[in-house]
């Protein structure tokens, strides 16, 4: 350090760069403040006696914590483990990136691997190799995307309109949450209604405390669930008021009502909650991934998620985040791969964090692209928001990579926003909920965010929200309300979503509904990537759609624009 007070003009310029508003901290492996390379992570190893794993990563069974035991007894294939563990980590990594080895070949090995071994495998890989592996290991052939639709004022009218726009722009799943939890029933209804105004078959969820989330799902007010959190150490799991067994039971509870669900976890949560037991963030996340696998859940939302500021602050943190997505896919889980939380003040850094999921494609590239401006995002902001729509579409077009979205002309967007708000007005009237005025509908049609909307009577809304629960309003009542208000196509579409519960087809790995209301999952849309020229590549009508942007100069008449 110089003692001079005088700074160079260049330093001054660099100090002004947004990236310097981001937080960076030193590694501190003793408390788990380290991404994926810690001297305190265990050595891989397994021992089986009489069909039971009696030693896992150097720990005898008597000393297993509850995660070790759950993973040993439910996640790892006892018949495959000793053979799989005998393969050197670097050979498994080679298998992952070799296009001649199929996804199935890899799964035959990974089903027998312990957490420490999975860690050892990805530690041999750089980010490009991980992306190659992810391209092959993603469960569903066709990538998709998920949006957040929330409001800083929990305004249901806004949520309906933004959900409709997001649905039209191509998202296949929509998630909401609340500033004031008690608003949940109204906002969840708004999301459900709005989602069907864009393209049919968009699935919705509302992130809440586990039991409440299940209740809304059982009533058919939401279509699936995601905020079923698991953690990588026993104390933090208990702080979350759950165990692997309670979560496994909850998973079965959802399936018993025909409701799709995935778990949620991510690097950094344990160190964030102060109980990482001195293990690296990625090692603990791998334990979460295997608990999910063992519980028989079809998929996982991971990629640090709400703790992204923690791995984002340490060296190689974003490499670790990619590794967690890869490992979820490596053990045959659906992966909704993060990119859903505000990550950096720097636009360069935001994109760099996004590309490792966007380029190879994942089941849901974002597990929450903010369909609102970030100030309205009640998940505390996303890595990408409504102001990034055009950038996203350009990235897709530049690289010919399918991130699940498309450019939609303004007139169409205004029409669906307006329609969603009117449909919600009808449903609220049908259910005897506080009225939605013409002024609100007009405002929300043209709005960017909640600041552009007239405020609602919050206390009346909260009373009504309670009455939705007390009266036992269900998804069927929303269907009837849509029909009564004259939105018969939306009523049909919502009924089709609800009817999915009866067949259970959406319970399979990586399942989504297409706009034609067909189920697409890892069962009937298995990722068949096998090197250049194979697998999913945007082509045909989809590629033509991706070529359209807000401003493209016409080749026919360069004085005009197309699109």
């Amino acid at each position, binding site marked *: 350090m110089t003692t001079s007070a005088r700074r160079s003009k260049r330093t001054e310029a660099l100090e002004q760069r947004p990236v310097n508003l981001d937080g960076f901290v030193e590694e501190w492996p003793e408390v788990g403040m380290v991404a994926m390379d810690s001297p305190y992570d265990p050595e891989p190893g397994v021992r089986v006696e009489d069909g039971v794993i009696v030693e896992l990563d150097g720990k005898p069974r008597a000393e297993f914590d509850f995660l070790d035991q759950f993973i040993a007894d*439910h996640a790892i294939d006892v018949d495959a483990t000793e053979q799989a563990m005998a393969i050197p980590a670097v050979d498994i990594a080679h298998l992952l990136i070799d296009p001649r080895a199929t996804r199935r070949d890899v799964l035959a090995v990974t089903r027998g691997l312990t957490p420490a071994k999975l860690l050892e495998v990805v530690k041999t890989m750089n980010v490009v190799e991980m992306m190659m592996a992810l391209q092959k290991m993603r469960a569903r052939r066709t990538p998709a995307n998920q949006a957040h639709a929330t409001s800083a004022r929990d305004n249901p009218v806004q949520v309906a309109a933004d959900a409709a726009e997001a649905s039209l722009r191509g998202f296949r799943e929509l998630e909401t949450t609340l500033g004031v939890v008690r608003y949940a029933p109204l906002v969840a209804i708004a999301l459900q209604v709005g989602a069907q105004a864009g393209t049919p078959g968009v699935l919705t969820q509302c992130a809440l405390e586990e039991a409440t989330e299940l209740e809304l799902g059982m009533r058919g007010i939401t279509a699936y669930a995601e905020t079923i959190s698991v953690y990588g150490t026993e104390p933090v799991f208990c702080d979350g008021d759950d165990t692997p067994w309670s979560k*496994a039971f909850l998973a079965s509870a959802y399936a018993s009502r025909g409701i799709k669900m995935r778990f949620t976890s991510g690097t950094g949560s344990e160190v964030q909650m102060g109980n990482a037991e001195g293990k690296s963030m990625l090692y603990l996340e791998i334990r979460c991934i295997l608990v999910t696998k063992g519980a028989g859940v079809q998929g996982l939302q991971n990629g640090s998620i709400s703790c992204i500021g923690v791995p984002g602050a340490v060296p190689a943190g974003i490499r670790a985040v990619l590794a967690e997505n890869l490992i979820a896919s490596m053990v045959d889980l659906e992966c909704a791969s993060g990119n859903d939380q505000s990550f950096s003040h720097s636009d360069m850094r935001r994109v760099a964090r996004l590309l490792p999921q966007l380029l190879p494609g994942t089941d849901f590239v974002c597990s929450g692209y903010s369909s609102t401006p970030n100030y309205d995002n009640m998940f505390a902001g996303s890595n990408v928001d409504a102001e990034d729509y055009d950038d996203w579409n350009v990235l897709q077009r530049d690289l010919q990579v399918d991130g699940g979205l498309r450019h939609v002309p303004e007139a169409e967007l205004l029409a669906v926003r307006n329609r969603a708000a009117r449909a919600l007005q009808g449903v609220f009237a049908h259910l005897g909920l506080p009225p939605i005025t013409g002024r609100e509908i007009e405002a929300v049609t043209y709005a960017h965010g909640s600041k552009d909307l007239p405020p609602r009577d919050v206390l009346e809304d909260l009373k009504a929200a309670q009455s939705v629960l007390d009266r036992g309003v269900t998804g069927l009542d929303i269907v009837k309300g849509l029909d009564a208000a004259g939105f018969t196509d939306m009523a049909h579409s919502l009924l089709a979503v609800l009817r999915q519960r009866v067949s*259970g087809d959406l319970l399979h790995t990586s399942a989504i509904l297409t706009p034609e209301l067909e*189920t697409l999952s890892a069962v009937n849309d298995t990722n068949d990537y096998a090197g250049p020229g194979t697998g999913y590549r945007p082509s045909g009508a989809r590629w033509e759609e991706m070529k359209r942007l807000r401003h493209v100069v016409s080749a026919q008449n360069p004085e005009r624009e197309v699109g």
Partner: protein
Amino acid sequence: MQRRCNVTPLTVPGVTTPSQVDLDPGRDYPLAARRPELLKTPTGKRIDELTMEAVLAGEVAPEDLRIAPETLRLQARIAEQSGRPQLAQNFRRAAELTALPDELVLSIYNSLRPRASTKQQLTDIADELESAYSATLCAALVREAADVYERRNILAS
């Protein structure tokens, strides 16, 4: 899509058990589109009876929009044949839970939270699952939890 002709026609719905149905994930999934004749609601309705007209006529209740245990067991076989034994096992536990009322499902979940139950309480839940609902897989899961909670000291004191 080809359909093999050795599939037993379900002229008498409900007689064929899930384990007797010939299932091939590549051919029969998704069931709603490809094998709708196998699907019934727990209330005995066919999936094609769940129409808009029926909803508006008040003939569809929330209970009609639930999955039947037989359907979950079919989906379990599809999961199994797709190489996903854990998912299949989850579907089989779920099949057992279809018989439980919502409140009981929620209350068992809450009982499984850390420090929420004594060992006896968990054992009682397992016994009830088995005797009242024939939910042997779920009962086994709860008993297993009781043992682990005891060893890890996260039972209610």
